[in-house]
Structures are given as C-alpha cells and as structure tokens.
C-alpha cells in the first residue's frame, strides 16, 4: 500500500512539474511582448512610452533573466501567488479565478457526479431488458456523440428562445447582484439548469452505454452463470454484475475528467456563464497570458487531484488491488 502510494504520488509530482513548466513557458515564448500590447491598448503617446515600458516590464517581472523568472515563478507559486493580470493590471490572477470558480464548480461537480450516478443506473437497467435497451442505446449514442456546445445551443433555441421558459444566458438576472436572498437563489437556479443539462446529458449518454455493455459482459461471466445455476435471484446476480462493472467505469471517470472540464469551458462560453471558461475566452481575446497561465495551472492541479483521489479510492473499491498490494493471494 505504501509503495503503491509513493509511486503514485511520485508520478503525480513529475506530471505536475512538467505541466507547470510548460504552463510557465507558453506565455513567455509566445510571439508578442505583453507590455507592448498593454501600451498599444492604452493608445499611449510615444512620449510616455519609455516610462510606461520600464514600469510595466518591472511590474511583470520581465526585467530579470529567464532562469530567474522561472525560479521566481515557483517561489511565488508556493506562496499561492499566480501573478498579475495584464489586461486588468494590477488585479491578481487569483482574484479573477476566485471570482469565476464558484460558477464553474456549480456546473461541473453536479454534472460529473449526477451523470456518473444516473448514467450507470440507467445503463445497468437497460442491459438485457429489450424495451429499455432499444431506447437507452440509441439515445445514449446520440447524446454522447453530441458536442456539449452544440447541445447547449440547441437547448437555448428550444427552451430559451422558442419556448421562453428559461433565460438565454448569464448566471443570474441582469437586475440582480449576488446575495443571500431567495430571489437571487431562484434566479441562479433558473440560469443554471440549461448549462447544467448540456454537460449532464452528454456525459450521461456515455456512462449509460458503457455500463450497459459492461453489465452484458458481466452477466455472461462464469460467476454470474454459476450464481444463477445455484438459484440466486436475478436481482442478486445483477447486483454483483453491477459492482464488477463499476470498476472500469471509475477508471473511465478519471480519464474523462479532463474532457468534462474542457466541455464545461465551451458550455460556459455558449451561455455567457461567468466561470473559468468565460474567463479563458476573455483572456484569449485580451491576450492576457498570465490569467490563462493561472487558470490552466488551476485546472491542471484540479484534474491531478481528482485523479489521485480516484486512484486512492480504487484501492478501497477493488479488493483485488488491495490484496495484490498487501501481498495476499
């Protein structure tokens, strides 16, 4: 168990180092000087360019050699300092991320957890039940093959533009400000439903198909036939099949996290939802590389931690891993 954990943590640490280094390098090796860009955005007159240039070069820490910038970056990182936004100088990148994060989490976590739970349930139910299978399978394929962004646009067209049941975009009504009131909560939920559905439905389809196939496989395994031959009730047989089928699905969840995050980013853009995705889009439009760097760093860490948790959880869920590590037979 210890060796397993040490090995895993070491791999994660290495991945983290590589990812962060790449993340650090990208803005610095991109064409175009961010300070020049800022000055051009200000429409500064040539007479004040020199003063502005030296001030901002120093403020962004570009006035030291690259290797020193790299060291400073790590030092700052361990103090939780992600740097300063270029386009919104001098707003700390962390302030921007902190502002956007609740919106992204509010979409992402329920979408991941509920889709995984519901998809697996429905997929398991569908396996070997003809009527259900005939509907779940095609619908599942259709959903999982749909890009979240397109589904989002479709949902907006049907439920917001045409039926006008739900709002078109944003995270709350334009006449409100975030606060602890029922009115705000209701508005927040109304705005949350469609982007949530866009993420949920696509993931749901994938899990349902995966589970349905796994259950069919497990129901044909020797242990299932043996149980059935012993006269065990179908319910019990299916229960055992479900628990075995869940294992590859959990591995799949770890693998899918990255793409779910990517999906959330585009869905936010479709709905103009003020989360990390919208922040990324705005940063790209404004060439705000430090914000991009910060958001990506944040996502990298998030996905790595989630994967680590799943890796550790695996030990407890799958007795074979545990027994294998403990040297048992």
């Amino acid at each position, binding site marked *: 168990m210890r060796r397993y954990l040490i090995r895993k943590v070491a791999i994660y640490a290495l991945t983290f180092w590589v990812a962060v280094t790449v993340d650090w390098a990208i803005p610095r090796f991109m064409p*175009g000087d961010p300070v020049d860009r800022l*000055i051009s955005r200000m429409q500064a007159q040539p*007479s*004040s360019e020199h003063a502005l240039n030296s001030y901002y070069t120093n403020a962004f820490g570009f006035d030291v050699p690259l290797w020193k910038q790299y060291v400073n970056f790590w030092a700052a990182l361990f103090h939780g300092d992600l740097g300063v936004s270029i386009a*919104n100088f001098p707003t700390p990148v962390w302030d921007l991320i902190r502002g956007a994060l609740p919106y992204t989490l509010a979409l992402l976590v*329920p979408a991941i957890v509920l889709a995984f739970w519901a998809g697996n349930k429905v997929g398991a139910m569908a396996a070997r039940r003809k009527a259900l299978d005939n509907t779940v399978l095609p619908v599942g394929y259709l959903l999982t093959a749909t890009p979240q962004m397109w589904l989002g646009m479709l949902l907006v067209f049907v439920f917001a533009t045409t039926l*006008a049941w739900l709002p078109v975009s944003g*995270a709350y009504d334009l006449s409100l*400000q975030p606060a602890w009131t029922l009115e705000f909560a209701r508005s927040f939920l109304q705005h949350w439903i469609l982007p949530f559905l866009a993420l949920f439905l696509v993931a749901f389809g994938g899990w349902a198909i995966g589970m349905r196939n796994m259950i069919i496989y497990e129901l044909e395994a020797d242990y299932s036939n043996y149980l059935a031959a012993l006269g065990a009730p179908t319910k019990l047989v299916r229960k055992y099949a479900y628990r075995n089928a869940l294992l590859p699905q959990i591995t799949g969840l770890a693998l899918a996290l990255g793409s779910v995050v990517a999906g959330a980013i585009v869905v936010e853009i479709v709905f103009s939802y003020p989360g990390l995705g919208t922040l990324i889009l705005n940063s790209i439009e404004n060439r705000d590389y430090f914000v991009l760097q910060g958001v990506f760093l944040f996502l990298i860490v998030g996905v790595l931690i989630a994967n680590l948790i799943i890796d550790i959880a695996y030990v407890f869920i799958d007795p074979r891993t545990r027994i294998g590590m403990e040297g048992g037979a």
Partner: protein
Amino acid sequence: MLTRKRGGGAAAIAVALLVVIVASIGLSGAGASQRSAFALPRGQTLYMSGNQWSPNNDVNPAKNWDYVTGLVGFNYETAFRYDPMKGTFIPWLATSGKWTDKTTYVMNVRKNVKWTDGKTLTPADVAYSFKLAKIATHPQHPLWTDTGLQGVNAKGNQVIFKFAKSHSYQQFDYYRYMVAIVPQHVFQRWSKTELATANLNLTSGKIVGTGPYMYQSGYGASSETVTWKKNTNWWATKQLGIKVAPTYVVDISNSSNAAALGNFAAGNIDLFNNFAPKSAIRGQTKTYYSKAPWHLSANTVWLFPNTTQKPLNDAVFRRALATSIDISQILDKAYQGLAIKASPTGLLPIWNKYVDGQTVKKYGFSYSTPKAKQLLAAAGYKDTNGDGYVENKDGSAINLKIVCPNGWSDWMTAIQVIQSSAKAAGIHLTVGYPDYGTMADDRGHGRFDLLLGNDRQMSNSPWTYYQYIYQLPLSGNQTTANYERFTDNAAWKEVQQLDKTPTSDKSQYQAQLTVLQKTFLQKLPAIPLWYNGMWAMFNTKYWTNWPSSSQNKYTDVSWRNYWQMTSIDMLTHLKSAGS
C-alpha cells in the same frame, strides 16, 4: 448491501447539492460590496451593453481603456464636454475658459457643485486633477510633456494654465474634455503609483463624484453587471434644468457577441453597442439613421503599407494599389452596407467641413482598375515574365502579403477583396491571418508588407489622425502610431504646426489642414478604406426619443470617452415609453 447501493445515489445527489450551495456562498463572498439583491423596476432602468469586455473591478478614472463603464461621464465629470457633430465645446464643470494671452489659459470653475459626499467642488480639485498627469506613468502624462504646459494653479474661482511660448492648442483641447475631475480630499490617500496604474479598489464602498449617477453595485472581478443610480442632487438639474431619464442604468459585461445579441433580441438590453448584422435591425429596433449606413462613423480603417521596402516605398505604387481596391465590394461583403467608404483624405465625416474639395479632386483617388494599371505602367512596373502580375522596376518579382488578425471575420473578408481587386490590376498579393499578438509584434517592428489598422477614434481634432500617420521620430517598436514607418520630416512639422494652431483661428486652421490633405494625398503613406460604424441599436419598448439623424444628434454609444462627448445628452433626452 442494498441499502449501501441506495446510499450511493443519495450521496451523489447530496454532493451535487452541497457544491451548488458552497458555490453560492462563494458567490455572495465574491460580491462582498453588495448589500442585498434587488430587482430593478424595468420601466425605470436602462440596460446597455457593448463597452465592458474586462472585469468590472477598475474604478481608476485615469485608465480610460479599462475602467467600469460610466465611471467618467456618470460619476466623474470633465471640465468641458465636446460635441463632435457641432464641433463645439460644452461648458461642464467649467462654465467657460479662454486664452487670456498667448501663454495663459484660464478656466472658470462652476460654483455650487457638490461631490456626492457633500463637499463642494473647488478650483483646487480641478487643478489637482490636471496635475495628476504629471506622474510619468499616468496615461495622460503627454499633457505635460507634449503640449508645452508648464503649470496649473487654482486662483479664486479660476484655474490658470501656464504654457511655454510655443505650445499646442489641439492636444490641450483634447485634454480639456478627457481629464476627469476628481476629489482631491478622497484621492490624496493614494500613492502616485496607485493613482497612475492601480484599480483604486472600493475600500469605502463608495466612489465620490459630481455626475448624474452614483455607483450602486456590481464592483467585482466576476460581476456581470454594474448598476448606477440617479444622483438626485446633480448640479445640472438646478443649474441647467436637465436631468437624466433612467433612474437606474445597468451596464452588462460582454463575453461573446452572440450571447449579447441573444439578450438584445430577448428585449433585455435597451442600448446595444456591439457590432450586429443588419438583420438585427427590425421591429422595435431603431438606429441613428433609418436607412443605410444605419450607424454613425466612429473611426477610419486604414491600409498600412510598409514604406521602408520596395515597391511600397514608391508613392506611385501605393497610389496604384489604392486605386485598385474596390471598397464598395468590401462594404457589401463584410458589412452588408452597415459602413461607408472613407474619404480619400481619411478624415471622418464629422470633419467633412475641413475637407478641401479642390485638393481631393486634384490629388484624390478612386477605384478604377484601368487607372491602376496605367499608373503602374507609367511608373515602370511591367509584367515582364507574362504571369499576369507586374514586376519591380528591376525585374524582380513582387509578392506582398496582406495580413489581419485571425478571427476578425469582417477584416478577413476585406483583405480577400483587396487581394482580388489588386490581382485585377496586376498586383500580386497573398493574404495571411496571424494571431493578434504576432500581428501586433510584427507591426511594431516593421516586419510586414501590408496590414489594416483603425486605432484612432472620433475626437476634437484631425490632429489625432495626422499624428497617427506621421508621428516621428521612429523607434524600434512603433506601438501606437506611424505603423507604416514613413519618414517625412516636412509633413511631421506640418502636423506639429497644426497642433499649435488654435481652432478659433479659422483661416489659419483651415489653411493648415488643406496643406496636410495635399501632403497626404500626394504621397499616400497610408490608404484610407472605410469608416467603422459607431455601432448602436436601440430597443424602443421601454425607452424612446433616442438619438437620430433628424433630432437629438448625439453620440449614441456607451463606449469609454464618448460619455464626455454627447452620449450623456442621449440619457437626458430619453423618454420612458410608459409615460
């Protein structure tokens, strides 16, 4: 075992709900400056969008490319405003101003104007505001380095500006309506660096101004809207008898054009200042003009040739290129008629009165493929190898690349039209769509052949346009002007002379402008193409009496630096559709 299974489902739902709750706690934390949620009465609220693309957390009036919409105009006001349609200055926090001698300008400060914290506006506040630009990193620092201004002092009810013998008029005029007048008693707590570059966060939860609106809520890195509430004690109501119609103004941050347009179509936005296709103008939607081009013109789009390399260093070749471009095709294909062709002088329609017809007739250019061919042939550009394209005078091949940032779809269409137009005249162009950063970097360092630019907005003086074209000396990196790297010392002297000519000296001012038009058209260092629109669509369901070409001729955008032109007049003239 069965219970455990069910427990899993409940746990999943519980986790999901928990996250939504935690998120909303995070949100109420993020909006720390908000007191409570409140729904605004729709009939008394103006919703607008089109200016804010960055977070709503900059309340520094010096940063006029970043501050929250309305900060200057709604809250802080300027000494004067400028009416670009009439070409006149409107006395605002100053009741009048004049040059008492050749080096002294005196501003009379309006009396009985209160800051929103109850204190009185003083001439010392006005002087202090102009002095802030002395800080070297202040965005308006050129007020002190480029205009000849030497000192600003408050005396009695006046503010006295002392200038060097040789000084600017045009640039100083610009700062007269661009410098936000701020309360010294509030601003003195900030350091110089903060005043010039920081966001001046809302420590006390209040911004103290003199204008028609007071900040109400929305400050924050992730907020979607900023809400302004009417200042019932606004000085202009008592002194000028005017008041802004909407009780609340909500500015909505953009994240994408499509989402914003969806909101406008749903009737949630009253004033829409993003580009939108012509099909959006229908039903209750109105625009400044009731027919093409629908919108006012806000800035000129130029084609910049790199004049440091052949054949673009040859004025005749540049003229041939300009003559070859079918601009009306660009307007059809990229703008569906929402924009209009630029004058060959490049001057905006608001400066039409300065355009010298004789000069344009004699030295101007207009689209004609045969004329372009003729110009090329006469200058010695011939197709020697028979590939359909002309070669350089020395026989080497011409292959020029024209670029615009990737994703700027209207401009991408435009450069394709330019390519095919030039081809018809025998000029070989290829198109490229680099990333914006690459384009800007190459533009600054002169690593390009041809590119488009439209950085200068409407202003009080064509000087801002000529400075954009001719500014010297060149530096290694041209970040804001003279992208074409054109060295014409005589022309630059003329531009400086224009700056030193007062607008009130009508004959001299016109003479100087005529000279510049001739200089420009003779050598054509940059090619004016079309005017980008002042994009504005109005929803007439809740508010009527919007600006139009027949009445209320005001700037109709919520963009920064336009409120202190005449956009604020738009709000004082609006009428509630319900009343």
